[in-house]
């Protein structure tokens, strides 16, 4: 029959089968190549890590403002709760005092965060030596980078930044996760705790810029643990 007509419930005419079957195989093969190409071209998710199977402890001074953190003699460790919640409420009773913080460690480029263990095990009052007086230095800056929620970006999600992650980042910030401003300066990536121009936690009016490339003007405060970026103004770059 050189006039093939296909009816679903009859066997397919051989001429049609000879035409369609190779085409179907080619289409499937193209699909597989496409899958490989699309997967291969994804942006790298960055060097964040979260070892959520081991608990570790750090001793230091509890700092509740602007965000929950622990200052040890050598570094600053951000503190968060499980899920998309900050740990400020849990930290407030210890504010300014010695504390042992226990939890699982998130880390990216040397920036550390603990997801606190449940209950009393997470924070225990201890004696620590008083901090030696540290000098703060404030410099006016204009930086181009991205506002991120620290927990996802440091390793809870991979990748934990960018436009596709924006909704999640806003939810995290609303829940009290500290925002970081990540900017590449002279080839190295800087991670700055972001606050409003008065040094208070960022509010809703800044959340709309999360996950996008923005230019920030403000004051960079260094010299006392994790540098803080007090944001005066933000605008979208590009």
């Amino acid at each position, binding site marked *: 029959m050189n*006039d*093939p*007509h*296909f*009816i*679903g*419930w009859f*066997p*397919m005419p051989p001429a*049609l089968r000879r*035409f*369609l079957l190779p085409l*179907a195989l080619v*289409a*499937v093969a193209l*699909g*597989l190549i*496409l*899958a*490989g*190409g*699309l*997967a*291969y*071209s*994804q*942006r*790298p*998710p*960055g*060097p964040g890590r979260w070892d959520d199977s081991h608990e570790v402890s750090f001793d230091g001074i509890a700092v509740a403002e602007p965000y929950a953190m622990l200052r040890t003699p050598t570094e600053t460790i951000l503190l968060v709760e499980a*899920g*998309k*919640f900050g740990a400020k409420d849990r930290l407030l009773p210890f504010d300014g005092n010695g504390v042992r913080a226990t939890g699982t460690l998130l880390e990216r480029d040397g920036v550390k965060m603990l997801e606190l263990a449940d209950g009393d095990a997470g924070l225990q009052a201890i004696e620590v030596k008083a901090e030696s007086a540290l000098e703060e230095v404030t410099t006016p800056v204009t930086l181009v980078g991205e506002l991120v929620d620290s927990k996802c970006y440091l390793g809870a*999600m*991979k*990748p934990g*930044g*960018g*436009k*596709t*992650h*924006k*909704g*999640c980042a*806003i*939810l*995290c910030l*609303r*829940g*009290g996760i500290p925002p970081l401003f990540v900017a590449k300066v002279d080839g190295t990536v800087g991670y700055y705790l972001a606050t409003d121009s008065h040094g208070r936690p960022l509010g809703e009016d800044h959340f*709309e*810029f999360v*996950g*996008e*490339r923005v230019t920030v003007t403000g004051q960079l405060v260094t010299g006392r643990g994790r540098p803080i970026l007090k944001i005066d103004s933000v605008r*979208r770059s*590009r």
Partner: protein
Amino acid sequence: MSVTYRPVKWNRNKRIYDAILAAGIAGYLAVFLAVGSLIFGDEAIGFPILLMRALGTAAFVLLHVALAIGPLARLDRRFLPVLYNRRHLGVATFLLALGHAAIAFGYYHGFGLINPIVSLLTANSNYSSLAGFPFEILGLLALVILFLMAATSHDFWQKTLGPSVWKSLHMLAYPAYGLIVLHVALGALQSETQSIYAILLVAGFATVAGLHLAAGRRERNKDRRIPLDVAWIDVGNADDIPMDRAKVVSTPAGERVAIFRHAGGISAVTNVCAHQRGPLGEGKVVDGCISCPWHGWEYRPEDGCSPPPFQERIATYRVRLDGRRVFLNPEPLPPGTPVEPARLPGGNS
């Protein structure tokens, strides 16, 4: 056109079709996941995100295929069998998109302070900025459309909604496609760094649009325009119509009529199938019935009725012969009206 409805009436062709479809989807996901989890070594992309991307891209690729089949089949009849079971492709597209959305929703909007649905709808309200636009909403709208289409893809719904409502509903595939293009452009493309994604997005759009334009142009050329005052239309020589096949002409009112030559003579019916408006004129007379090229619904050429127990009816038209020239009366008769076939002198074949 069964009288009782079953979820799927299986046959060998559908099984082969679905087997190829399932193998294609499984292979796609497997390759995407394998490549995606290997490329960055121990700084790997998180599995939920990788899976979400695999599902989302798979759904988008399948949607391209589903949209390309229609014009392909109009350009070359040999693609018709692929159209036959397109609904399974559509349902698969919806399920993949649903998986994609479920992961994005649970992972990005769960575990937080706010109800995930509220979070999804209120996290971002930057409707005035392109770079910041809440692309999630676009995807959600497309998903709702895909759901409606998948849910009503069964013949039962087609019958219940009627062919024109059903067809309009399923034309929403195009807005859904547009929404997904924007969802990708304002979402993933804003954070991905490789230009291949933008290139493929444009290439996909160009392919779908190009095929539709080509098929549309071809159809327009085939429609011979006939002056309005002609009572009977000269269709041409009966010998130009292959046996058991049809010639399609347009009436002055803009309706397409399929004029079949079959063992009984020459008969004319509407070109529009009562099922999903398939082009009956591209079908064939098999065992005395016109068989629709899309899903095989059948109609008798002499009265436009489906053979019992089916009850479908389509409009018929009067034809007459002058020698071997065929003339068509462009007034459609009510669906199911018997019309005596015009008999060719010296036999019909």
